[in-house]
């Protein structure tokens, strides 16, 4: 695992703790639309304040003032040919400066916002399995096509019934199982891979639970977007394990739509609070 992956793994440990502490009460206890609305409404002003302190507010103010001046010039001296030519250029330059002064804070904000989205995605992107539903578990193994195959088994648990598998996909070094959820559970699936025992989180239940689709390997990108579980080390016989969960159907807190709703709601909230917080954007 490279340094970046190790850093992200360490950060994930922190965000998981924070995420569980801060997000569990509203999301697990409220309806989806309400929890997403509350989080968005709180996050909008919070991000605005964050922006205020990591951006060059005076430079932004100057750029905005310059743009206002050029617009005013356009209005006042519309009969002047030279002003009519210069003012739009000045406006364009002002817009570029505004963009320049926004890029750095936006890039900085991208990190915490992405970490937050990764945590929120655990709740909203998929729903847990319901008892009676089937799904497929896929384990990716390390090695190449010539590497020997370790003995792989999934341990039985009262929460799930193993309906088919293990079935090996030789060309992709994968092992697959089909399982049927039997009862509500947050207990992990346990696998024996050679002499190594590995776990994968599993969520069965109604309503909202943290749903981790993938336990990733050493790729920093995968670790970033699948923060819930500890990644497999490079020397592990297992590269990753994934579980297919059903999509959540909701315009406000369902698969994919929750992100859209979050951005719109937080933007509206930020715009409402902007005059009170005196933030220049």
């Amino acid at each position, binding site marked *: 695992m490279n340094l970046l992956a190790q850093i992200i793994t360490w950060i994930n440990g922190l965000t998981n703790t924070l995420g569980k502490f801060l997000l569990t009460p509203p999301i697990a206890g409220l309806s989806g639309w309400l929890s997403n609305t509350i989080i968005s409404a709180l996050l909008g002003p919070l991000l605005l304040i964050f922006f205020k302190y990591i951006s060059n507010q005076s430079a932004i103010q100057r750029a905005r003032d310059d743009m206002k001046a050029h617009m005013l010039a356009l209005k006042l001296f519309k009969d002047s040919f030279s002003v009519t030519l210069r003012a739009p250029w000045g406006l364009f330059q002002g817009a570029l400066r505004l963009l320049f002064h926004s890029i750095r804070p936006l890039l900085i904000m991208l990190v915490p916002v992405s970490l937050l989205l990764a945590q929120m995605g655990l709740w909203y992107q998929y729903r847990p399995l319901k008892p009676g539903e*089937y799904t*497929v578990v896929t384990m990716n193994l390390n090695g190449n096509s010539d590497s020997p195959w370790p003995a792989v088994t999934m341990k039985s648990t009262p929460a799930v019934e193993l309906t088919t598998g*293990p*079935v090996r*996909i*030789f*060309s*992709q070094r994968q092992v697959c199982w*089909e399982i049927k959820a039997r009862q509500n559970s947050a207990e992990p699936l346990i696998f024996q891979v050679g002499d190594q025992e590995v776990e994968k989180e599993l969520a069965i239940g109604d309503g909202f639970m943290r749903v981790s689709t993938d336990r990733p390997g050493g790729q920093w990108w995968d670790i970033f977007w699948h923060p819930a579980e500890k990644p497999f080390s490079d020397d592990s016989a297992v590269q990753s394990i994934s579980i297919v969960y059903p999509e959540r159907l909701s315009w406000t807190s369902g698969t994919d739509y929750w992100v859209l709703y979050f951005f719109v709601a937080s933007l509206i909230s930020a715009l409402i609070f902007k005059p009170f917080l005196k933030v220049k954007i």
Partner: protein
Amino acid sequence: MHKDNGKLDRREFLKQSALTAVAFGAGLNATRVYASTKRRLSAGAANKVIVIGIDGMDPGLSERMMGQGLLPNFNRLRQAGGYTKLGTSIPPQSPVAWSNFINGAGPGTHGIFDFIHRDPQKQCAPFFSIAETVPGQGYWEMGDHKIQLDFWPFGHKLPQTLLRRQGTPFWDYLDQAGIWSHFYDLPADYPPSASKYGHHRCLSGLGTPDMLGGYGTYQHFAEDGPIRTRDEGGGRRSVIFFENHTSKPPLKLIGPTNNFLIRPEPTTIEFLVHRDLQARSAVIEIQGQKILLRQGQWSRWIKLDFDLSKPALDKHVSGICRFYLQEVAPNFRLYVSPINTDPSNPATKITEPPTFIKDISKELGLFYTTGFQEDHKALSNKVFSDAEYAAQAGMVLQERLNLLQYAMKHYDDGLLFFYFSSTDLQAHMFWWDSNEKHPTRSAAQAKHYFNHIKKLYQKLDAVVGDILNRYGDKATVFVMSDHGFANFKRQFNLNTWLRQNGYIQPAQATSVLADVDWSRTRAYGLGINGLYLNLKGRERDGIVAPGSQREELLQTLVSQLEAVRDTNGQRVIRKVHRADKVYSGQATALAPDLIVGYCRGYRASWDTCLGGMTDEILLDNDSAWSADHCADVSEVPGVLFSNKPIAARAPALVDMAPSILTEFGLNIPDSMVGKSVFKT
């Protein structure tokens, strides 16, 4: 039935004809909106009438089993006076029979005379009798695509599928009177007729195509499959190669035809199969889904997305299929069911109102939506073994039983009609009520699978028992079949007989669709029971003059055909009916001149259905399709059970609609010829 000689058989024709019934034009036009699924009460008296249609339930077998105490619930009805044989249609084919039921009158009113009709103006060009697709008119070209705008000022016409059945269906009278009717899997009603007053719900049954436009086309992949994909009646076979136990090249699943292309071609979905010999299992990867199957295991219904995109329009249609892993090694074999319309997101209108199917799917999930659900073609083409077909048919029945539970849950009053196809499509393949040699099975196997039919009757007896327990004292309950069943041991080639007797010329002719000299041909057979004169003024190349020449020819044909005997002296044809004697009404234009009614054990040969000729007139049936009902009307009556005593002495299908209307206190319309079965 696929034939080695390359000619089409009846079912293959039906499939190809139904290709004309490409449904997607019609369905996409559906605009009616169904308000909600709230329960409704009918206007006026809250009567309840329940009709259970059991296709092909035979009175002979039923009576025997009732006598043996094997059908206690049916027997209970019989002992209370609620049982009689039910006269079927001429001819006893399901589309004709159910149309008689629907109109309360004979084929002269609904215009359905056979599975197959012919266009006399095109000199016997065959077509599917129940529905037709009218091609679109006008379009703009945009690259390879055509753009059709069906609004002003463009006025292009989209293709649409039309129901050919004529006359007024009896539920229209209920609809008008504010009485609710609920039909599940109604035959001969695709596309479903529209409700004028909104008191009618219907899920189309027999006649509803799959997404390839036919009656159901399975796709089969095997290591010993043909190198080039081969179409066979009702299915297609392809070879599968493995590299490192993964299919290579990827397999292609054929989907609906993209009619947005100027030169329409089928859509395809690529998928991979990975096999694990040790686990005797496989993983199928298709459109981001992984499906794990053990050898002998069926998948659940899988949703598939077919891309019909065209310029500036992202158009997709959803279909569903099931995979069945038949064998992993030594010969990997994978069956894919016909691609059915997705009931949760239908691309075509298969219910009235269009949203009815979605309401059902919300509760029941995905299920078969084609008319022919039991894949008898897979058995006929030896893709399925007998046991595999029985298992698949069992799954279909379970889905229907789930649907019946849904139907009863959402039924308050009015008419509830529910249809079971299992007795028909399983009997075609498993019925063998004889000690004679079966076409394809040993005596022990034939007995075993005939017992399977008996068990099916017992299951349906239990279903009827449940309905009687729930509604016996609240509703009038009918259990009916459209016809009975008989062994199909010997085939009669009508056209060969006509050729040998000089009615078809030349003497070397092989098919009325290919090499007949119409200037010397006086009569020909097409469809399962139809015989047509080459009548001057009606057929394009007609030579038989109307009047005395026609009359003389008809009389001669009737007497000669009824005299036909098999090599053992057995009578082959029970009766030849003259259309002008047995049909009356406004819809007789396409009727055959004679309807050949076969004796039990006989039927028109497979080749006859599409005008083919063979060397011999009479030959053994060698198909797994070993039982049939396309005989004479007197040979294969259906059954009628009711929880009220039946007074009519010889009721027939045409009496059912009048009986139902009478139960609701409505008058019998003049268009109907039947009367209530509860009156003498």
